[in-house]
């Protein structure tokens, strides 16, 4: 009986499909199904749009999306677009703190132009999820980087600045291992410390450091470890104090942190050598260029 039922379902499906196919193909030969959702005819050319076109799209091949499109976020994620007044200051911010440091260092411009993501998305606030959590920043396989909380723009505010720089340097770092692989044996340096995508968030910052990682999220996979380490190294002014320099210890916790720092140091050395070898760019030079710009 089950087999017969299944056959009937298939037949009915075939019949419906045949009808549907006939309907679609027989009436309007010229019709296209990929009609653009967005009507380009009302896409205005403001001064801001022209600035973006000249300075980002034509200059770097990088599209800047500041007008809301709901497929920039996943279903169930709730977020608002940016104020139009914040877009130009945000462009200035990413130019100053992300693009220009690469342009300042040897081979940096070539590297940047050849690896720049195709799409940058600005979102006004944080992303609220149905489960009550908040997403701070997202990226899509190096092709898209999404900046959240653009409406809160204040480059002098360390928390806001850190959110944006951590996002962009982390996501941009992914392009390196995606294109050139991770440094040889990178994942073996702190191999016992990795957690997983579903459990990294139970760690505190100190617990992550004791395992040899710059953040709990870095423990989620070697790829994220690579991206987090590069990002923290570039934007974190106190990177050496927090993650490299050995403390004088009198407690077990302190000794554990020192052991973790030694692992971070070993990973950073490997990353730095690999980065320069495959990109021709000195990570230390980019860090210096970033740090010189911080208030």
């Amino acid at each position, binding site marked *: 009986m089950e087999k017969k039922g299944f056959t009937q379902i298939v037949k009915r499906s075939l019949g419906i499909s045949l*009808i549907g196919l*006939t309907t679609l193909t*027989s009436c309007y030969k010229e019709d*296209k199904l990929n009609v653009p959702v967005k009507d380009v005819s*009302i896409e205005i050319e403001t001064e801001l749009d022209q600035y973006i076109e000249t300075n980002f799209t034509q200059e770097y091949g990088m599209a800047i999306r500041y*007008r809301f499109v709901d497929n920039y976020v996943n279903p169930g994620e709730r977020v*608002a677009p940016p104020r139009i007044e914040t877009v130009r200051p945000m462009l200035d911010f990413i130019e100053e703190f992300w693009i220009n440091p690469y342009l300042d260092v040897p081979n940096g411009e070539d590297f940047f132009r050849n690896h720049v993501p195709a799409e940058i998305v600005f979102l006004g606030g944080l992303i609220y999820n149905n489960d009550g959590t908040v997403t701070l920043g997202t990226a899509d396989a190096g092709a898209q980087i999404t900046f959240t909380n653009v409406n809160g723009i204040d480059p002098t505010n360390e928390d806001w600045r850190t959110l944006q720089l951590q996002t962009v340097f982390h996501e941009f770092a992914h392009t390196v291992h995606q294109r050139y692989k991770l440094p040889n044996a990178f994942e073996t340096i702190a191999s016992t410390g990795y957690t997983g995508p579903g459990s990294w968030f139970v760690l505190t910052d100190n617990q992550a450091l004791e395992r040899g990682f710059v953040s709990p999220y870095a423990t989620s996979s070697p790829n994220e470890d690579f991206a987090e380490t590069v990002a923290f190294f570039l934007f974190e002014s106190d990177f050496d104090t927090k993650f490299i320099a050995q403390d004088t210890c009198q407690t077990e916790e302190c000794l554990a942190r020192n052991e973790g720092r030694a692992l971070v140091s070993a990973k950073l050395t490997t990353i730095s050598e690999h980065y320069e070898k495959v990109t021709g760019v000195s990570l230390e030079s980019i860090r210096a260029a970033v740090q010189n710009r911080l208030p």
Partner: protein
Amino acid sequence: MRNLPSYVLLCFVLIFGCEQNNDPDLPSVEERVSEAIGDLQNQLTAPANGWRIDYRPTPDGGTFLILMDFSSDGMVRIQSDVPDNDGEFRDQTILYRIDNSQGLELILETYGVFHFLFELSQASFGGEFEFRFNQQQGTNLIFSSKSDGSLGQNTILVFEPAGPNDSDLISDEVVELLGQGSHRSPGLGNLGNHVLYNIYIPSDNTTISLTIDMRSRQAKIHGGSAGQSIEEIAQSVNGVNINTKTTISFLDGGIVFNQPPSFSIGGNNYTLNQIPLENFNKVTTSYCGGNVDSLVQFSSQNVAGIGGLTMTSSLFQTHSVVTASEDFFSHNHVFIFDQDDESLADSIENVFPGAAAFQFYMGVELNNGDALNAAGFVELDDFNNADFYLRGFDFVQTGNLIEFTFNGDDFITNDDAPQSKTDGLVSLTDLIFEGGKVYLIETIGIEDLFEFYNPCNDYKGFMFKR
């Protein structure tokens, strides 16, 4: 197989049906979509004064007055009566577009008042900024929300052609002034912006208490009484517990009660339809020991069916749902704050390292028939066993004002409670309840959540009725 001929026949019908109607001049889908978008844009830009939307993001909440004037260049000017962000939303111009996805959609592309309402309460308030075009009804355009924070309750928006003077109806200044009547610190404002007012009708010597949630635009009429001062109201025998909610709107400089509450106090009948909020003033009073408290006051001379009245912000309401009962109040101890809105959690945990809750009992009957009136803390040990550290008090209640006196040696604790903890209990409760007065203020948007406020030292906190 016996159905196959039927399918073949149906296919022929469809094919020939299409062929018969196939107009070689019929535009492509692309052209028809473009035409539909253009048509809607023409409709949106047509009215001389733009559109008026009486916007209700949620069915439980009140109305926001919004005017939208669309231009063909993708810009829309939006005026609203939302006074937040220093008046940013009174009059602003943002970008819009019309999409064709599952039908025509109106997308407000950059941040404005709709997005502000969308983001409230961690984007769960119920606002929206993407709308599906449903239909034209007469001269109106009907839209529905594409996504909605209030789950399963898509909002219907009616765009009506605005009148030439509709912008005069926008009452953002009055909304802003009314909101100044809040005693809640902005730092604690995530629970909404509640303001408590007393309406005094001099011709009848009657006071009516109401709370307004400025964010959701709901009002609750608590009760009414003869008299004006707390002392007069305490002695009045004409008090009436009204306990009625209504949604509200702000129009033309006044507050409109969308479901006008009707009630009787002292033989006089009242219906609250609309109160003009005129003659704004700041006045002072003292809620404790000569402290000067600033109040907001409006006065109107010609309120329909009432005559003259004043409406003054207050901590006091004539009636409260809080009464001495089996209910008690409890909440995590971190939600007690000092005069600077800093949590007392550290001070409490210094005395009670396992502190889990602050509790307040008022008239709870014990097994021996005595009433328990006490306030204090609950501490959990490593095995989640609860230890209670409560301090007894006597109290007098008038409306939502609780005046009490701690009893010197009345402690409800474990027999082996260390002296350091009872001493700590005394010092903490002396601090929190300094002056012996608290007002229990209902947060009408969240059921059973109350704020307690001590006017003597500006300490405050939140408690759920259990």
